[in-house]
């Protein structure tokens, strides 16, 4: 079963309320997405830990009903 981009965004925001989430449906099949997630919660975490935080927000769906989610995570730019 495929997931909608809105579902993915909702799950991520439940776990990371400040997150700015940008999702693209790569193939138009509801199964291959790319997500860019920006959150202050990533501060001080390694890339692996940042991705694990997003995966855990998706509660086991990643690798299951969600086949492919290319992930990029980053911390918000400091305001000058």
């Amino acid at each position: 079963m495929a997931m909608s981009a809105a579902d993915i965004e909702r799950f991520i925001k439940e776990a990371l309320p400040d997150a700015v989430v940008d999702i693209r449906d790569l193939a138009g099949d509801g199964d291959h997405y790319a997500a860019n997630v920006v959150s202050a919660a990533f501060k001080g975490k390694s890339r692996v830990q940042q991705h694990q935080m997003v995966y855990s927000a998706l509660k086991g769906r990643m690798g299951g009903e969600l086949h492919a989610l290319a992930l990029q995570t980053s911390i918000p730019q400091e305001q000058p």
Partner: protein
Amino acid sequence: MTDIAKWIDNEVKSNDVVLFMKGTPEAPMCGFSGRTTQILNHLGVTFKGVNVLESNDLRQGIKDYTNWPTIPQLYVKGEFVGGSDIVMEMFQSGELKQMLADKGVA
């Protein structure tokens, strides 16, 4: 530790660079595994490919081993580096080459 976790642990610790992937380095069976193989080949890294499609226990076991839900997974000197997105990002920024050089494997 389960038998499969012990087996994975041994692979990860007894090989400098291990890629758990779908298919083999010669014939990857998934675009993400293929892309990661290409990056390692491009950097001239000698690595061991472990085909997770050979066993369901292994396919699930590697996800549990590092709490990482997707394949491929790259390990260098016993440490989990990342999946295909992280490897790609590190390759593009030059970090991957540097890290491999620092660890003395490329």
